[in-house]
C-alpha cells in the first residue's frame, strides 16, 4: 500500500482573506483592460514557471431557482472541448508539456487555473483563451458531466464532514443561494440541459466581471501583451451583470440530525456572520482564532489535548462576496457527543462572558499578522490571493489595512463580537452519525 502519511492535524481550507502580507508593496500590479478585464501581474523571475488564475463572476450564487449545480456543470464542461479542439485534445496538449488547465465553480466565481513552464506560456494562454471564448459545451460532454456530478454527489454522501456542511448551509442560509449545494442535487442535476449551460455562460461569463492574475517568470508588459492579444476581443454584453439577493437568517436557530452508521459523530455549529467590509470582522477573526483557530486554541486545548475527545476540532470565519458565516466543528466518538457539545457551547459562551487573556490576544494577533509571508510563497498562492482580494473588492492594499486592523483589536472588541456572534443560542446545529 502507498505510504499515506497521517498528519497530526486535518488540513483546513486556506482562508485567503484571513491574513495580510508583511511587505508594504501591493501584491500585484493592477490595470483595467479596455473590455473591463482587471489584469493583475506579479513578477517572480527566479523559477521558470507561470501561474494564471481567471475568476469570473459566474459561481453557484447565480444558479437559477431549481437549477442548483448549473455553475458547477458549466465549469466542469468548460475544458471539455472548444471550437477547435475536443476535450481529450485539450488534455493531451496541456499535459504533453507537463502543464495543467483546470476549471471549476465555487459559490461566487467560476475559476480557470493554468500552470505551465515559462517556455509553454504561449500554448497555455492559447488553450486558456479558447476555453474562455469558444467553449463547445457539446451535448455529449454535458451528459457525461451530469452523470459524473451525480455520481460524485452520491459518493460524497459517504463523507460525514461533507454531509454536515451541506446540512448546516441549508440551515444557516434559508432562501439564499448559499444554502444550496454548489454541486447541486441529484434532482436538480437531472433537470439541467445543454441550453441551460450555454445560457448561463453567456449571461454570467463576461470580461467586465473577470479578473486575470498572471504570476511567475513574466513581466508586466509581456503579460499585458499576451493577455490582450488573446482576450482583448472578448466583448462585454449590454445587459447588467447578475445580482444575488440579500441574505436573511432564519428567525430562530434550527437543529438537524442526519443518521449514519458511523463510529464517530460529526458536530457542526454555525450562523451568518460578517465579511471584511464590516469593521467588526477583524475582532471576529481574532475571536475565532482564540476559540478554535490553531493547536493552542481553547477548543483544541480542552477537547483534544486535555480530554482526548477529538482529533478534528476547529472554528473559522468564512467570508464570501455576498455574506459570511462562522462555523465551529468537531468529530468525536458517538457516546461522547453530549459531552463535546457541552464543552463547545461552554467555550462559545465563555468568549462572550469574560475577556480573553492578554496572552491569548497577543498570540492570536502575532500569528494572524506574522504568518502571512508563508501564504505567499509560491506563484500559485500569489495568484490566488491577488485574484481573491480583487474580486472581493478589498483593494490590493488590503494586506496592509488588514495588519493594521488586526493590530488594533482589543480584548473588549473580542468580547463584544463574541457576545454577538458566538452566543450559543443563536447557532444552528447539525449532527451526523448514529442517532442515540
Amino acid at each position, binding site marked *: 500500500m502507498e505510504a499515506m502519511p497521517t498528519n497530526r492535524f486535518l488540513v483546513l481550507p486556506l482562508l485567503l482573506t484571513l491574513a495580510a502580507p508583511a511587505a508594504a508593496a501591493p501584491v500585484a500590479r493592477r490595470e483595467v483592460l479596455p473590455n473591463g478585464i482587471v489584469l493583475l501581474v506579479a513578477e517572480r523571475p527566479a523559477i521558470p514557471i507561470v501561474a494564471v488564475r481567471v475568476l469570473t463572476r459566474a459561481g453557484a450564487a447565480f444558479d437559477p431557482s431549481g437549477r442548483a449545480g448549473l455553475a458547477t456543470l458549466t465549469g466542469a464542461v468548460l475544458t471539455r472541448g472548444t471550437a477547435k479542439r475536443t476535450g481529450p485534445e485539450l488534455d493531451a496538449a496541456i499535459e*504533453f508539456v507537463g502543464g495543467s488547465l483546470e476549471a471549476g465553480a465555487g459559490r461566487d466565481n467560476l475559476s480557470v487555473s493554468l500552470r505551465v513552464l515559462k517556455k509553454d506560456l504561449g500554448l497555455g494562454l492559447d488553450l486558456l483563451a479558447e476555453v474562455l471564448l469558444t467553449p463547445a459545451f457539446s451535448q455529449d460532454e454535458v451528459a457525461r458531466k451530469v452523470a459524473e456530478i451525480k455520481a460524485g454527489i452520491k459518493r460524497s454522501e459517504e463523507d460525514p464532514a461533507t454531509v454536515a456542511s451541506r446540512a448546516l448551509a441549508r440551515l444557516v442560509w434559508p432562501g439564499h443561494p448559499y444554502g444550496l449545494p454548489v454541486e447541486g442535487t441529484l434532482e436538480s442535476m437531472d433537470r439541467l440541459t445543454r441550453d441551460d449551460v450555454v445560457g448561463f455562460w453567456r449571461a454570467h461569463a463576461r470580461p467586465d466581471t473577470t479578473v486575470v492574475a498572471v504570476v511567475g517568470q513574466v513581466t508586466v508588459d509581456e503579460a499585458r501583451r499576451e493577455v490582450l492579444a488573446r482576450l482583448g476581443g472578448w466583448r462585454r454584453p449590454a445587459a447588467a451583470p447578475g445580482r444575488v439577493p440579500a441574505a436573511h437568517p432564519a428567525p430562530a436557530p434550527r437543529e438537524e440530525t442526519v443518521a449514519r452508521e458511523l463510529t464517530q459523530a460529526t458536530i457542526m455549529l454555525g450562523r451568518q456572520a460578517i465579511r471584511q467590509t464590516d469593521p467588526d470582522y477583524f475582532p471576529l477573526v481574532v475571536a475565532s482564532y482564540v476559540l478554535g483557530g490553531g493547536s493552542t486554541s481553547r477548543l483544541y486545548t480542552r477537547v483534544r489535548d486535555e480530554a482526548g475527545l477529538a482529533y478534528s476540532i476547529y472554528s473559522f470565519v468564512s467570508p464570501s462576496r455576498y455574506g459570511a458565516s462562522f462555523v465551529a466543528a468537531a468529530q468525536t466518538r458517538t457516546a461522547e457527543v453530549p459531552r463535546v457539545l457541552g464543552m463547545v457551547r461552554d467555550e462559545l459562551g465563555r468568549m462572550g462572558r469574560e475577556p480573553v487573556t492578554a496572552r491569548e490576544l497577543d498570540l492570536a494577533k502575532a500569528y494572524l499578522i506574522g504568518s502571512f509571508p508563508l501564504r505567499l510563497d509560491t506563484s500559485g498562492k500569489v495568484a490566488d490571493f491577488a485574484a481573491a482580494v480583487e474580486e472581493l473588492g478589498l483593494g490590493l492594499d488590503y494586506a496592509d489595512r488588514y495588519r493594521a486592523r488586526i493590530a488594533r483589536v482589543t480584548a473588549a472588541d473580542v468580547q463584544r463580537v463574541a457576545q454577538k456572534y458566538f452566543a450559543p443560542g443563536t447557532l444552528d446545529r447539525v449532527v451526523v452519525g448514529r442517532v442515540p
Partner: protein
Amino acid sequence: MTAMRTVRTLALLLPLLLLPATAARAGDGVLAATLDNGLRVLLLEDHRSPIVSFQVWYRVGSRNEARGATGIAHLLEHMMFKGTPAHGPRQFARIVEQNGGHDNAFTSQDVTAYYVDIAADRIDLVLELEADRMHNLLLDPKDIDSERQVVIEERRTRTEDDPGGFLGEEVGSIAFKAHPYGYPIIGWVEDLKRITPAEIRAFYRAYYVPNNAIVVAVGDFHAPELLEKITRRFGPIPRGPAPPPVLAVEPPQNGERRVVVRKQAQLPIVYLAWHAPNQRSADAPALEVLSTVLSGGRASRLYRHLIYERQLALEAGGDYNYFSLDPNLFWFWATPMPGKTPEELERALLAEMDRLKTEPVRDEELDRAKNQTEASFVFQADSVHRRASLLARFELIGDHALMDSFVGRIRTVTAADLMRVARTWFPPDRKTVGVLLPTP
C-alpha cells in the same frame, strides 16, 4: 530539566569543538554535512522570500514496528508535541504560532518527519525546539493516555468511517505476509489501546538519535552560518546505538489474494496491487513512467479509457512508490459509476495491464509522461517547503544528489522497457485484489 541545561551549557562553551566532521557544497548548491554525532544536515539557500522551511526527518516509520505494537511510530509523532522539561506541553505550538510559523508532522511507512515553515529571522527558536525534542521528550504517561484517545479518533475518521481507508487497510494487510509494510501506519486499534509508556520511551530512545535523522533547511539564510548554529544546537546530543535494521523480506507472492468487505457506503471500490521493486532496481524508472502513463492526468490511460470513453469509473488512479525503502506495491484504485459493477471495472483495469504487455506505448504517451515528471520538478522548486522535502526524500534513499540524475534516469526509458517491466511485474496470478461492496 538537567539534561536540557547540560546541552545548553555545552553549546555555549564549546562551539569550536563541535564543527561538523565533513561539510561540502555540491554542484546543486546544497551544503551537506555530517556532524560528529552522525546527524546529517542539508542546507540550501533560497532568497526569494524571507522564509525558511526547517525539517527534521527521522528514519523510522511503521516499517520499524513490531507485531502487537503497530501504530507506535505515529503515536510517538503525536507525543513529540507534548513537551520537554524545558518547553512544557503546548509550548512548541505556542512558540511557533507566536512567531507566525506553521508546523506539522507526518508518519509514513518509512519515515517520521517534522517541519516548521517560518519567517527566516526566527530560525534560532526552531533550532532550539527541534534539538530539545530530539533528546528530551517528556512522554508523560497521562499525556500518552489522552493522546492515544486522540489517535483512536483519528483512526475512526481515516479508517473506520472512511470506506476507501477501510478497504486500503485490508488490502495492505493481505498483500504482505512477512514485511511490516502490511501494517496500517496508524496501527490496529487493539495495539493502540495496549501500547505502554515504557514501549514508547524505548522506541523514542532507539530511533530518535542524531545518527538516525536528517535535518534539511531551504530558505533565506546564509548556509555556513546556519550550519554553525545547527552544530551548536544539535552537536551536543549524544550519538545513539545504530537502530536495529529491518530484516524482514517479503517472499514472492504465490497466487492471487483477494479480500471482499461489506460496509455502509454509496458506491463500490476496487483495489488492485502487485509487488514491485523500489528505486534500487534497474526497472524502477520504467515503473515510474508506467505509473504516469496509466494514471498521470486526464490524458492518462485510466482516465481516458475508463472514465472518459467507457464511463465505467467515477474515479480511477494509481501509484508507484519509487522512494520506498523496501520493495512495495504498484497499485490502482477505482470506483465504478452507478450501475456499473466492480467485476466490470476489475476486468477493465486488468485489460489495461494486459495491453501494456502486448502493445508498445505510443511515443506521444511516453514523451508526455517524461515531460510531466520533469515539469513537476520545476513546479516543486517554487516552494521552499517542497524543495526541502524532495532533498530529504532523495537523501533517504542514499544521497540528495540523486535528485540531479533522476530526470536523466526517467529520460532513458523506452517503450520496450515499459513492455518488459509490465510483463515482469504484473503477472495475473500474483495480484492482490480488494473489493468494497456497499451495504445500505
